């Protein structure tokens, strides 16, 4: 009886750790994406495409700035 209770506690603790890890990953996933969406739009913009290498530089610099400024 005592052994079974210990087993249950161990399983419950393991499930809790899994839940915390999964929730942590999920929370990170929900917060990310703003800068990724922005750079995708930047690359797709015809003006930046016409700008060639400098358009790419502009988009990448914007992505780095976004990651630092917005993505906490």
């Amino acid at each position, binding site marked *: 009886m005592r052994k079974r209770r210990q087993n249950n506690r*161990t399983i419950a603790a393991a499930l809790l750790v899994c839940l915390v890890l999964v929730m942590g990953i999920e929370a990170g996933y929900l917060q990310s994406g703003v800068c990724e969406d922005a750079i995708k739009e930047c690359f797709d913009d015809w003006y930046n495409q016409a700008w060639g290498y400098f358009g790419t*530089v502009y988009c990448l*610099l*914007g992505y*780095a700035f976004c990651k630092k400024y917005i993505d*906490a």
Partner: protein
Amino acid sequence: MMKNGKMFMRAAAVVLIVPLSIFAAEERLKISIQEILSIGALDDEAIFQWTGVAADGDGFIYVLDGLDYSLKKFDARGKLVKKAGRKGQGPGEFLAPRLLACSQDFLYATDQTVLGISVFDKELQFKKRIPFSEPVTDLFVLSETTMAIAVMGIQGPGKIVVADGSGRVLTELAYQEKYTGPMMDSVSVALDGQGHFYLAYVFQDRIESWDRSGKRLWSKNLLGIKKVEMKKIADYLLPTEVCYKDVSLDDRGRLFVLAGKHAKNPSRDVYVLSPSGEWLSTLTLPDTTHCIYIDRQNFLYARANQGITLKKYRLNYE
């Protein structure tokens, strides 16, 4: 079952505890901050969204305001004394102002949409644009005539360029031997009085010190991150998680490193390292910030209210 459960718990404990162990070490230096000035609030128009900050020896504070396309000068009490610039790509104009640095007599500003570095005097008069054809991720002024420029690696490895006031390259620090992809080796840079470079990698868990001859003095990873998270966007495989956002040095050459997403308090934790790379302390700012700046009087500047407010703190060492 019992045995498997115990093994799982041990493995989970290792996963959770090991990366935190460095911060469980005893602090060698107690540092606290005391707010002494706050510029800009939700109910005023002093600052709309600042991006870069610098301060001079006379107590004036200079701010690049991204939403106002301007460079602003505040006195030591936080009163706006001058504003320059407007929306555009001409001389003295801004579309996306980003980095700001200052020397004894001049201010140096970058704009995401314009290659080169704009130079203003302390009265915010535009003086010239230093031609520089590569993307700049950080700027550190060494003297009236020289500056260190961190260059983002897009088609080749990132590097630090030391250039003069006309943009002529004096020397280069190639801190990466091979190219590992766009932005992978983006860094923030600071230099001490002995000419040592301090680099904090934006997307990698690496903080390094290099001497002038190009010799790496030390390398540290404080976050326990082994793998860089990447995502394919358009034709590029780009890193997605910021490890370190900025670096600055105090008056004794201690390195302050603003940590990004992996920190216990993302965009608020500042790791303080000795000049030889030993971890001394961790400082937690009250609000998230994208950059930190320590002036010559040892005041630390950081963001609040998502860029509407600039905070000035006194650093107290115990």
